[in-house]
């Protein structure tokens, strides 16, 4: 009887225990991006090509997994947001260069690695949300002004060491240097209405609640809030500002894809990369996630189009990645996460 039980367990477990390795019609993905966000794209790809897409989604640590698995890793592609993480993978020697005319035609040079180590797929703007009731139009137009003493006790952001804020601070360092960036962050911290907490949406909600007048958040959260009945009033309480950095334009970050160094399904992986930069996939991205398509020839979603065109801060993404470590140190030095009152 005991053996029968063991046999039964073995029967159930054995098929689950096999690792997916190279096979004819599939491609394996490690994704830092949520399943729900990327699934529609993969479904469209599978429908078009018959290639099955396997996914492991985790928000943290997938680089370590790739590193540990080494030469035998089953992963073909890595999906992630944030330029710093893309360059982490390149720096760890875990990616391989890919270059095709199709990819280079769809993805502008500033949003891909010059050696083809990674390609941007979408763009996300870091915005300022202002209270419709309490902040007049044009009262704040730049990131620099977040540190203006006139906003004392009026600003909400998520934690300072979140990747989105770190990237913004890294861009700031790129324009002004570390010393000025430290002063600026100190000023923003002094203006905080409360200890940094919650996600970007929670900051807009705080505007509705009257906790603060100004919040920092990525652009697509506006679209997400408008789609959710419970969150619509949050969105309705705020105006969107496309701020400028160093007089240039709005801070942009990318979501991107890269091929792993030891990709076992190289041909299919390449097929998927090209599919993702195609007009069709870029259209799906634009409309499902409300991110800005990487291909300037693809229209953004109607909502985003209605916000109009805006200048982008053209700082090199490499610079943002390079300044990340310095940015984190500044966040710690300033004690940003302690909130407005610090000891």
């Amino acid at each position, binding site marked *: 009887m005991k053996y029968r039980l063991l046999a039964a367990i073995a029967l159930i477990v054995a098929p689950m225990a096999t690792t997916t390795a190279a096979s004819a019609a599939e491609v394996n993905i490690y994704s830092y991006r949520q399943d729900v966000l990327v699934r529609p794209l993969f479904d469209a790809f599978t429908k078009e090509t018959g290639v099955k897409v396997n996914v492991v989604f985790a928000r943290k*640590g997938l680089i370590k997994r790739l590193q540990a698995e080494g030469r035998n890793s089953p992963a073909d592609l890595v999906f992630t947001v944030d330029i710093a993480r893309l360059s982490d993978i390149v720096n760890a020697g875990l990616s391989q260069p890919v270059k095709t005319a199709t990819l280079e035609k769809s993805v502008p040079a500033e949003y891909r690695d010059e050696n083809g180590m990674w390609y941007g797929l979408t763009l996300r703007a870091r915005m300022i949300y202002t209270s419709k009731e309490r902040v007049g139009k044009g009262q704040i137009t730049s990131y620099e002004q977040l540190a203006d003493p006139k906003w004392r006790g009026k600003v909400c952001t998520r934690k300072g060491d979140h990747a989105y804020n770190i990237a913004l601070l890294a861009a700031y360092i790129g324009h002004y240097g570390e010393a000025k960036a430290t002063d600026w962050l100190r000023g923003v911290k002094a203006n905080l209405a409360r200890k940094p*907490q919650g996600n970007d949406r929670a900051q807009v909600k705080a505007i509705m609640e009257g906790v603060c007048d100004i919040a920092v958040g990525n652009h697509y959260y506006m679209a997400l809030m408008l789609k959710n009945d419970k969150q619509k009033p949050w969105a309705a309480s705020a105006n969107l500002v496309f701020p400028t950095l160093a007089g240039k334009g709005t801070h942009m970050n990318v979501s991107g894809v890269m091929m792993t160094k030891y990709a076992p399904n190289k041909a299919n992986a390449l097929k998927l990369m090209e599919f993702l930069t195609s007009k069709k996939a870029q259209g799906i991205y634009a409309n499902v996630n409300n991110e800005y398509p990487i291909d300037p020839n693809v229209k953004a979603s109607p909502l985003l189009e209605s916000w109009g065109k805006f200048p982008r801060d053209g700082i090199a993404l490499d610079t943002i990645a390079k300044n990340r470590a310095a940015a984190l140190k500044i966040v710690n030095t300033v004690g940003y996460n302690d909130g407005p009152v610090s000891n």
Partner: protein
Amino acid sequence: MIGIQASEANARTRGTRRFRPDPWAAGALLITAIVALPVLTVLGAAFFPTENIWPHLWETVLPGYILATLELMAGVAAGTILIGVSAAWLVTTCDFPGRRIFEWALVLPLAMPAYVVAYVYTDILEFAGPVQALLRDIFGWRTVQDYWFPEIRSLGGAIVVMTMTLYPYVYLLTRSAFLEQSSGVGEAARTLGCSPWAAFRRVSLPMARPSIVVGVALVLMETLNDFGTVDFFAVQTLTTGMFNVWLVMNNTGGGAQIAVVMLVFVIFLLVAERAARRKRGYHDTSTRPRLPVRFELRGGRKALALLVCAIPILIGFVIPAGLLTSYAIEFYDVSLNNRFPQAAFNSILLAALAAAIAVMIGLFLAYAVRLRKSTLLRNLARFASLGYAVPGAVLAIGILFPFGAFDNAVDSFMRGAFGISTGLILSGTIIAILFAYVVRFLALAYGTLEAGLGRVTPHMDDAARTLKHGPAQALIKVNLPIIRGSMMTAGILIFVDCMKELPATLLLRPFNFDTLATYVYQFASDELLEECALGALTIVAAGIIPVILLTRVMGRNRPDQELSVV
């Protein structure tokens, strides 16, 4: 290293023998070596950092992390002792309406993942939530500036949420200690003129203290390894700091160094726990305890007892479960897709397998230590259980590297010798997840079984040996039937914990693989409570049945069934 008294007493009276290898000792050594790998991997990373940011951390955020961690631990310890001990005392020594129901219902919050409870209370108590909306309606307030309301996303909020989900550990252990106490002791105190309260304070409580300490040590280790709750409540503890340095900033050395600071905390806890247990001399186990005579409560005291028992159940279970149920009903179409049943199946299968494996390994280790009476072996077994206090994601990384190295070594060898590539054998399979669960929760199994075996008198083994039974047969024929209860307890606790486990599962899982916890997470991480309600509720439901079983097992009042951690 929370095991229980008698085994040590035996070791002391019979003297500690020198270490000699035999199959049991060799097996135990091999197991501890494998199980300790993840923790050793993390330690290794700490001492060989690529970029040393320790001085920077020390000058800036680390003191704050340590302080917040200490405050959190102190608050949770105080809260769980207050609730756990008073509830345990009430249900074992007093009689009041509903006592029999409270006895098992007090354990229910154990089935609630703390991060889910954190989401629920934020939903209820934040500005837009029903409580503040009602207050605004009643008093005519409009904005945040008009009135003061405690901020749920704070250190205080984290202390409350963790207290409410973790106090059952203290309750369970203390209750079983009270049950074990011969009621004669309490009665003697009463005849000597003590009031019931004085008898509790001067006799029952000191006698139960070691069990309380064991429970609090468990609670504090869970508090240390928690990430979800503190992150959500924006409390800057060592765990959140470590995650940011390690996984957001990709600085392995710095992250591992913070992990070492955490391990120092753990070791301190274990030492304190040891010290408390060494004073167990006055534990009276000579006679079988009689059923206690319960003190009947009346009037105001009855009402107070009802409140003390009902409030933790209400806050820790009824309210969150109720809100989740209403969301689950309202949003079942969003959450109930074809991936849900598979996720539930995966969860239950993995949790059951992990529980079975951990109990078997824990039993092997505990029995080997009993056979050898080797201090070295016992300390090794305890070191192997450190995984309990390590945050899941860190443990997962500690598993990725040794597994990857093993797989690649086998692959290279097979390529070289036979021209066959074996690829990844362990990495990215459910074996990796099972391994993580076993490493994480072995402490529960080892501690409980060490304690259970400790209460089997060595004469039993000797008797079996005179009947020409070898150690293995003595274990199966003599010890196993006696410690069945301890095995059940350990298995059930591990099952419930595995059902809730998230970070290690997330990072180690195969392609297209979900458990209930990862399924819930994809919504919960976006703070979309409604969409994750059904999954969360299923985790709770799957946890409740074992939890009720557990109380029934422990309620049988057998002295061999004390719960503990290594």
